[in-house]
C-alpha cells in the first residue's frame, strides 16, 4: 500500500506539470501569439503607409475630386469604388442562385456517386488560380463579348469571371449548412407528405438560412478583393460604367496597375484604397463569423 501511495505522489502524476511540458506550452503560446499578431502588423503597416495621404488629403476628397489623376493630385476613388461594387454585386446576383442550386443538387437531387463527383469538381473549380481565370476570360470571353458589343473587355466579362470564382465558395458553404439541418426536420416534412421542392423550400432552406448567408458574405469578400482575374478582363478605364459593356477599373486592379510607378502621395493613396478593401472585407467576414456562431445557439 505504501508503495502505491508513493507512486501516486510521484512527480509525473502530481498537479505540477513536467518542465518540458511547460516549455512546450510557452513555445506554442509564442507561435500562436505571432500568428495572431500578424493581422495587427498588416493593419499597422497598411495604415502607416497610407497615413501621408490621409493627413494631406481630406477623406471626402477621395469621393469628390474631379477625377483620378494623381499626377495633378486629384484623387477621386469613386469610379473605382463603383466599379468594384458593380462587379462584385453582379457576380453575387449570378452566383448566389447558381451556388445554392448546386448545393441543393449535391444534397438532395444527385445520387451519392454523382454528388461526390460533382462536389469534387466544385472543389477543383475553387482551386483554379485567379490568373488562369483571368487568362481564360481574356482569350475566350472577351472576344465573344466583343462580337456581341465592342470593346469586349467590360464589366460583363468581369462579372462572369467573378461568378465562376465565387460559385464554389457559395456552393460549399451552402452545402455544409444544408448538411447541418437536423434529419428529423426532413423526415417530419416527408411524413407530412410534402413534395420534394416543398420540403426544400419550406424546411431545408429556412433552417439553413444563416449558414447560407454567411457563405454569401464570405463570397462577397472574395469578389471585392479579387484582383488579377478582374484586372485582366475589365478593360481598366477609370469611369463610372453606364452599361454592362462599358470597361471599368476596380480598386484592387488600380493598385496593381499603378503601384509600380507610384510615389509619395500617390503611393499613399493606393495604400488608402488597400486599407478600404481590407476594412470592407473585415466587416464582411466579421458578419459572416457572427452569423456562423448564432446558427449554433
Amino acid at each position, binding site marked *: 500500500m505504501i508503495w502505491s501511495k508513493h507512486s501516486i505522489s510521484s512527480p509525473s502524476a502530481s498537479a505540477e506539470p513536467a518542465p518540458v511540458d511547460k516549455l512546450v506550452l510557452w513555445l506554442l503560446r509564442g507561435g500562436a501569439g505571432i*500568428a495572431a499578431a500578424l493581422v*495587427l502588423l498588416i493593419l499597422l503597416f497598411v495604415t502607416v503607409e497610407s497615413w501621408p495621404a490621409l493627413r494631406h488629403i481630406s477623406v471626402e476628397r477621395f469621393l469628390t475630386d474631379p477625377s483620378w489623376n494623381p499626377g495633378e493630385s486629384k484623387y477621386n476613388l469613386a469610379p473605382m469604388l463603383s466599379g468594384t461594387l458593380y462587379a462584385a454585386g453582379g457576380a453575387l446576383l449570378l452566383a448566389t442562385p447558381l451556388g445554392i442550386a448546386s448545393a441543393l443538387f449535391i444534397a438532395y437531387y444527385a445520387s451519392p456517386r454523382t454528388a461526390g463527383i460533382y462536389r469534387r469538381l466544385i472543389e477543383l473549380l475553387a482551386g483554379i488560380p485567379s490568373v488562369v481565370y483571368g487568362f481564360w476570360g481574356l482569350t475566350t470571353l472577351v472576344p465573344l463579348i466583343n462580337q456581341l458589343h465592342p470593346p469586349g473587355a467590360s464589366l460583363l466579362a468581369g462579372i462572369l469571371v467573378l461568378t465562376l470564382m465565387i460559385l464554389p465558395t457559395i456552393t460549399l458553404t451552402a452545402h455544409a449548412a444544408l448538411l447541418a439541418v437536423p434529419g428529423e426536420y426532413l423526415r417530419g416534412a416527408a411524413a407530412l407528405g410534402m413534395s420534394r421542392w416543398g420540403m426544400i423550400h419550406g424546411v431545408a432552406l429556412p433552417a439553413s438560412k444563416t449558414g447560407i448567408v454567411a457563405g454569401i458574405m464570405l463570397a462577397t469578400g472574395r469578389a471585392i478583393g479579387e484582383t488579377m482575374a478582374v484586372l485582366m478582363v475589365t478593360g481598366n478605364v477609370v469611369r463610372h460604367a453606364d452599361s454592362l459593356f462599358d470597361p471599368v477599373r476596380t480598386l484592387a486592379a488600380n493598385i496593381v496597375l499603378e503601384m509600380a510607378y507610384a510615389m509619395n502621395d500617390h503611393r499613399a493613396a493606393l495604400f488608402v484604397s488597400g486599407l478600404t478593401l481590407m476594412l470592407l472585407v473585415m466587416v464582411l467576414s466579421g458578419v459572416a463569423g457572427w452569423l456562423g456562431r448564432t446558427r449554433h445557439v
Partner: protein
Amino acid sequence: MSETVSVKLIHAHRDRFAQLTICFVAFLVCAAFVWIVSDLVRGGWAHLSWDFLVDSPRDAGRAGGIGPILVSTALILLIALMAALPLGWMTAALLAEYVSASGGFGYAVRYSLQVLAGVPSIVFGLFGNAFFSIYLGMGFSILSGGLTLACMLLPILVSTAESGLRAVPDAYRLSAAALGMSRATTLFRLLLPAAAPALAAGLLLGIGRAMAETAALLFTSGYVDRMPGSLLDSGRSLAIHIFDLSMNVSGGDAPAHASALVLIVALLLINMVAMWFTIGWQRRRIVSE
C-alpha cells in the same frame, strides 16, 4: 376533391420544374469547367514539351521555356512553407490541445486567423512590399515574396491541422495520460503522427494556394525571369509569368497557354493527392474503430 387533385398536380409540376432547373444548373457548371480546361489544353498542348519546361525564356517569354520560372516558384514555395509550417502547426496544436475554444487567448487567436483568411491577396502584396521589401530591406526578392506568402498560408495550415488534431480519438489522449506520458510526449509521439495525413493534406492545400497566388507576389518577389542566383534575387513565379505574357507581351498567348496548362495540371495533381490523403485517412479511421 378535384381541388386537392389539382393542387397535387401543381405541386408535382413545381417539383418537376425545380428538379429540371437544378439539374440544368449542375450541368451548366460542369460545362463551364470542361470549357475552361479544354480551352487551356487545346491552346497549350502543342507548345508543351520537355524543352519548354527546362529552357530559359527568350524574347520576353515569346520563345524559349519556363525553366528559371519553375525554379523561382519552387524556391518561393519552399520559403513560404518553411516559415508558415512551424508557426501554423504550433498554433494548431495550441488551439486543439491546450486552450479551450471559448477562452480569451484561444478566441483571440482564432478570431485574428479568421480575419487573416479574409484579407484580399492584394493587401498582402501591399503589406509585403511595405514591410519585407522596404522596412526590412529585402527588396524585390524571393525571400520577401516567400515570407509574404507564408502570412497568407497561415490560416489554411492552422485550420486543417487543428481539425486533424481534433479528429484524433480522445481514447489516445486518455491512454497516454494513463501511461503517465507527459503532454509534450503525447503530442509529439502520438497525436501529431496520428494526425499526419491531415497535416499532409493541409500542407498540399497550402502549396496549391501558394502556387496560385499572383497579386501578393507582384510587388514582393518581382518580375525578373532570369535564373535566381540567391534567395535575395528577384524571381518570377509561374502565375506572374502567365499574367505578364497575357497582358504585357503581344504574341505571348501560346507560351501563356502552355504555362497555364502546366500550372493547372500541377494544381490538379496536388489537389487529388490531398483528397486521397483525407479520404484514405477517414477510411482507415472507420476501419480501425
